[in-house]
């Protein structure tokens, strides 16, 4: 994939601007660190972005911290607590979290001009900053507008050791003594997950999963996670099914850093026993073509999250011109303007009503999908995201308000 291939989508000028910005970072080395290379939105974005940054001439290296199962159980608890879910984290668990970060700090190569840490798992690596002396930024992908305050108070000490922090929505950013930037995540229109597919490919994926096109398809694609509320999706579908015949697809994978997903998947399977119109699909990671085909085959896409930093599956569906019904939570409210490029709901009942509304009003659903595609093109693509990151890196060397490069 080459950066020039984005020109037919976004125009030649914006691609040239990326090259010019990248040139201004010539000679700098960026070190990106997160907790998983596969599975989940962060890894997905990085898998696409790192090669493009390197192609642009910004030398970018990506590393992943290591940890055992206990460590990832704790980091999942931290993740949930930052989202505001009540969780008990013991002192011993905090010690293990810090200990793991310390071991990684000793074994990993943290050199580079800018160390770019994603999410809380590797947060405490920043203790090495003083010793190394480079620039550090923290990228928070989580909706932290109402976190567990005790935990946040503890993590904040580490966040404030960074030179800057990045959030996906202004409401996620707590008071901090460092600069806070607003950068929304993105999708790649040229990835296997988002590129155009032939009818033949779409049909073959449906056949693989034994899904027929004889009734409208409602789909939620998400990791099996309680915060994505798959049970709520089934309840909404059940409410609609009484009056409008339709089928439901719940499809998702699991990730190394999310040990809870197996348990949630099992709960979901129990709930759907006896309804042949509900398809629960456990996808192998990566399952890009499958996801792409399922989204394109769907009549409506749902994202009924209880908390959401930013809904990448929402962006994917919008880019494909699909009408989306999503919860009015977190970053989703930045993606969807209700009644213009999608519908925002807050309850199972509201979601069910919205599904019925779109199934019965095809013209309205089509208009929402059309507006969604245009919005995605302007705001949700990887090229805009790369531009923002390049500006972020440059801002670490240019504190002035107006920077003339």
């Amino acid at each position, binding site marked *: 994939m080459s950066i020039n291939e984005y020109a037919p989508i976004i*125009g*030649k*000028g*914006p691609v*040239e*601007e990326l090259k*010019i*910005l990248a040139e*201004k970072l010539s000679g700098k080395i960026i070190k990106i660190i997160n907790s998983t290379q596969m599975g989940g939105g962060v890894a997905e974005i990085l898998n696409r972005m790192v090669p493009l940054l390197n192609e642009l001439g910004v030398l970018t290296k990506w590393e992943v911290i290591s940890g055992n199962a206990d460590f990832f159980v704790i980091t999942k608890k931290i993740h949930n607590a930052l989202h505001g879910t009540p969780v008990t984290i013991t002192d011993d668990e905090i010690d293990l979290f810090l200990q793991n970060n310390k071991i990684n700090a000793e074994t990993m190569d943290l050199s580079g001009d800018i160390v770019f840490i994603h999410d809380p798992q590797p947060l405490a690596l920043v203790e090495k900053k003083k010793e190394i002396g480079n620039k550090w930024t923290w990228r928070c992908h989580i909706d932290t*507008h109402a976190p567990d305050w005790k935990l946040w108070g503890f993590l904040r000490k580490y966040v404030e050791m960074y030179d800057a922090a990045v*959030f996906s929505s*202004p*409401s996620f*950013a707590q*008071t*901090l003594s460092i*600069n*806070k*930037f*607003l*950068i929304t995540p993105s999708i790649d229109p040229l990835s296997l997950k988002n590129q155009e597919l032939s009818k033949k490919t779409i049909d073959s994926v449906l056949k693989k999963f034994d899904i027929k096109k004889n009734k409208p398809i409602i789909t939620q694609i998400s990791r099996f996670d309680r915060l994505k509320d798959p049970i709520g999706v089934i309840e909404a579908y059940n409410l609609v099914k009484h009056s409008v015949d339709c089928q439901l697809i719940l499809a998702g994978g699991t990730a190394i850093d999310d040990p809870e997903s197996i348990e949630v998947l099992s709960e979901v399977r129990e709930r759907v026993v006896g309804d042949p119109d509900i398809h629960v699909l456990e996808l192998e990671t990566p399952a890009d073509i499958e996801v792409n085909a399922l989204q394109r085959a769907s009549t409506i896409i749902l994202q009924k999250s209880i908390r959401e930093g930013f809904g990448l599956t929402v962006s994917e569906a919008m880019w494909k011109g699909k009408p989306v019904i999503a919860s009015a939570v977190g970053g989703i409210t930045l993606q969807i*303007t209700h009644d*213009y490029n999608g519908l925002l709901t807050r309850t199972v009942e509201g979601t069910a009503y919205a599904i019925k509304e779109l199934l019965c009003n095809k013209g309205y659903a089509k208009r929402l999908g059309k*507006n969604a595609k*245009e*919005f995605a093109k*302007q*705001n949700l693509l990887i090229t805009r995201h790369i*531009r*923002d990151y390049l*500006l*972020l890196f*440059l*801002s670490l060397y*240019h504190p002035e*308000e*107006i*920077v*003339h*490069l």
Partner: protein
Amino acid sequence: MIRAKNPFVFKTRLNLLEITGEKAKNLKDLMGLTESVPLSVVYFHTQHLLPFQQHLSPKSPNDFAYWIKKELHEEVLSEKIIALDLQRPLNAHDFKEKMIQLMKSHLASAEYREFNVSPSKEFNFIKAKAFIVPTGHKVYNLFEFYGALKEVSIDSIYLHLFGAETFSEKHENDFFYWLKNELKEKVLADSISRLDPFVFYATEGLRAQLIKLVNKRLRAIKKSEGAS
């Protein structure tokens, strides 16, 4: 065709958005914070919708007016703030002052009722940290100018047409200044300076309009050169 002594150098403005942490829950907060925040914050909240949400159906490009109407339900004040756009070109400082005056008058009026929004609906003040970057396009005559207009990003066109309002006291846009002074194209410069960012909600429409005006002039030049 006249060749300029000084070329037109196309630059672009790229914004990195910074979360100031300042939030307003009511009109009093909004006015107080608008008074104290830097101009770059006011710039962001009164300009960004144009390039950022260019496809949306026509609505106020002014976040203050939008929030005042949507969350505070103060339609009268919202309308008055939107209408400040009719007084453009205004530099950011003048725009800010006029907006604060309107808020102050409204707070003192009998129709004002204090109302606090819930935390999730607060107004978040965002600052646009601007990076001014050369695009690599440098042109000396109208034909080259025409070619560059087709290739540069819409952010570049936006900067040269409307960015001057926010960066300086001068009210002339960059295109007007160069066309008039370097190419002696006063009529074309005047037509371009009459383009209104709020008419072309789809900013690619703005580019198309610009190209149309320049192309018309190029055809006229070609015709007159052919005649002589």
